[in-house]
């Protein structure tokens, strides 16, 4: 039962205790753009795309991790937020080698869709052009670090839902890389079950199905999986 009321974009919104601003907004049809968030996984608050303004707080807060509070006044869209979101996505596009034209996810990519949604038609920052590798040692899947935005959805889905914890992050800052096990080739991983949830969860073309012309993503409903797990049923 909804137990608190807050205002989002001038609308009175009811929310359950413990719900995040993002959940409260979405349940009332208010769209907030997200990137690292995936329903069913523990929110990370890493990409900062879902930031919103809360009255009385000096800085925007990520809506995916901030709990709704009684009487909160939230703005999800303003010039300041739009500018910040655009800059964040531009920064991500400049960070690795996102060459959309030669990507398996071209046209189905969440990063690309978000860039289009935010009206980004060019990147003002210098392209970093790091030398990043592609791991195709796995029998069925591949990992292209050129397209990774370090959202850690793969890490979380592998740990929290599959329970394998094959993926994690190695290195730090600009040198951060998603690694399997102890930075071994994915194909040699002793923990990977080959379930493919990471590929499903990946928002870009970083994790892909080998041999497939277009990797189909989003076919697993993670929320359902989580619900089933909680009920202890298959």
């Amino acid at each position, binding site marked *: 039962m909804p137990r608190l009321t807050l205002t989002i974009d001038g609308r009175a919104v009811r929310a359950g205790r413990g719900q995040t601003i993002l959940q409260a907004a979405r349940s009332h049809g208010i769209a907030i753009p997200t990137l690292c968030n995936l329903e069913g996984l523990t929110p990370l608050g*890493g*990409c900062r795309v879902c930031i919103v303004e809360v009255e009385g707080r000096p800085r925007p807060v990520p809506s995916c991790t901030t709990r709704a509070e009684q009487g909160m006044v939230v703005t999800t869209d303003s010039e300041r937020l739009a500018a*910040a979101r655009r800059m964040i996505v531009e920064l991500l596009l400049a*960070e690795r080698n996102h060459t959309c034209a030669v990507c398996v996810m071209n046209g189905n990519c969440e990063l690309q869709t978000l860039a289009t949604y935010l009206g980004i038609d060019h990147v003002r920052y210098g392209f970093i052009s790091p030398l990043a590798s592609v791991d195709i040692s796995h029998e069925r899947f591949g990992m292209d670090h050129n397209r990774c935005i*370090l959202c850690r959805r793969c890490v979380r889905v592998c740990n929290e839902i599959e329970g394998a914890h094959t993926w994690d*992050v190695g290195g*730090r800052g*600009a*040198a*951060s890389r998603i690694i399997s096990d102890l930075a071994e080739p994915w194909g040699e991983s002793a923990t990977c079950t080959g379930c493919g949830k990471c590929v499903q969860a990946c928002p870009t073309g970083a994790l892909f199905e080998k041999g497939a012309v277009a990797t189909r993503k989003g076919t697993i409903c993670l929320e359902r999986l989580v619900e089933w797990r909680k009920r202890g049923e298959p």
Partner: protein
Amino acid sequence: MRSAELLDRMKKAREMLAAAGTRVSVCMGSPCIAAGAEAVLRELRAMYGGQAIHVTGSGCMGPCGRGPLLRIDRNGEPTAFYEKMTPADACAAVGAYLDGNANGPGRLAPDFPFIARQTRVVLANCGTCDPESLESALAVGGWSALAQAIVHLTPEEVCAEVSASGLRGRGGAGFPTGLKWTTVAKAQGTQKYVICNADEGDPGAFMDRTLMESDPHRLLEGMAIAAYAVGAEVGFVYVRGEYPLAAARLRRAIAEAEQAGLLGRRILGRGFSLTIRVRIGAGAFVCGEETALMASIMGRRGQPVIRPPYPAQHGLWGRSTLINNVETYGCIAPLIRNGSAWFKAIGSPGNSGTKVFSISGDVDTVGVLEVALGTPLRHLVEMAGGVTGGTFKAAQTGGASGGCIPEGHLDTPVDYESLTALGSIMGSGGMIVMNDQRCMPDVARFFMNFCQDESCGKCAPCRAGTQQVSRLLERICGGDADLADLDRLEELCLLMRDASLCGLGMAAPNPVLGTLRWFREEYEAHIRGGRCPSNVCEREDSPCHGLP
């Protein structure tokens, strides 16, 4: 050991010290060791060890840049300090002193400002006691405040005393310490933790290392009082891996204190128990951020998580946790011993007590000094012997998370609010003085590269933002930038401040914003004229080198 035995042991230690008559101490802090203090101590021990004088290693005396340092104390006489000791000079100085001549080789003037003008509260015993001896700490009153607290005060009274003192966190943010303690004390749950954040990582900051190396018992005593006040039975000191000597001395101090019944089960025969363990960091600046630090202690990847919940509610292993900085714990024992009114009388209103600074850069004497909060910045520079190599241009406070204070604001009182008003922060106490030969875009570039290197990579604005800002500064220093780059630079800095996940990312743009605020014309000169006004470009190691 019961408290009566402790008092007895303290008395004996004091008497032994007094009986020694003349006490010769050689600083055994890492800067002095690097300068050759071990050989000095060895030689002195060989020469005078058997005599009626007391030769010992001690902690930091302040002017680290003039090490190895030596001091001679004799009851009723002013302390004589000696600088840049060699084994031969040290023996000559001590010999002369014993012959009635205190002006042996290397003698520092009695009013040497770096030492004479300090107000030492936290560092009171640094330089006077042997950091590797519990007896020596007891002789100067170590652990008496803990005894006082657990015998005469309830935990609530300790919290109230700390609150009343107005003590604020010395790690940089200045959060009221008493409020933090009270929050943890009131938190639900039986198992609680106390942590000491000793992951001192700012460029130019070495105050915490100084205290840990010089007077580890002071830190442990402060933690023990805190643990008593909040109801914790386990404590951790998280020391950065680059401080092996500090960690070794802390471990030794813990072992000695446990043996004496000052730590461990049923401290001083009472119902209070506390185990303190040392945890070593693996070289990540971000682990100074409290949530990242706790992740590291728990064996996880050292990266921050979003607050709230704060450690006071949900800390180590989900338990309520008190986390304070080294210097904050260092304030506790004298505060309890002398009372909150005494503590409050030092410093300025709203900024009680003292602050330890490590001053370096273009000053005559590099070292560690402690002054009352609210002391003008100018006094600190004067105490360090003034600016060398040119005239004063700016002082960077708060390290890579802080900003610079230009010459026009030299008389600013050093307190939390005044520094914030100037776009800088108090920070943990690192202070880098720069002369007019320094190029400010180059300084900003240095700090930004540091932050880029130390970003954990979890949030996009910090990870990708520091990379872009570094590149822009590289272009500016290299004379390849245009004025639009300056706008881009500012815009990115504001984004990082607004949208980063933790303090590292939020504060990373401060050195850029600070230098832009006070020295914008230098940026413009690099861009418009491809010229470096400070002529740093002529130095071969500079990025501006080779500008037309």
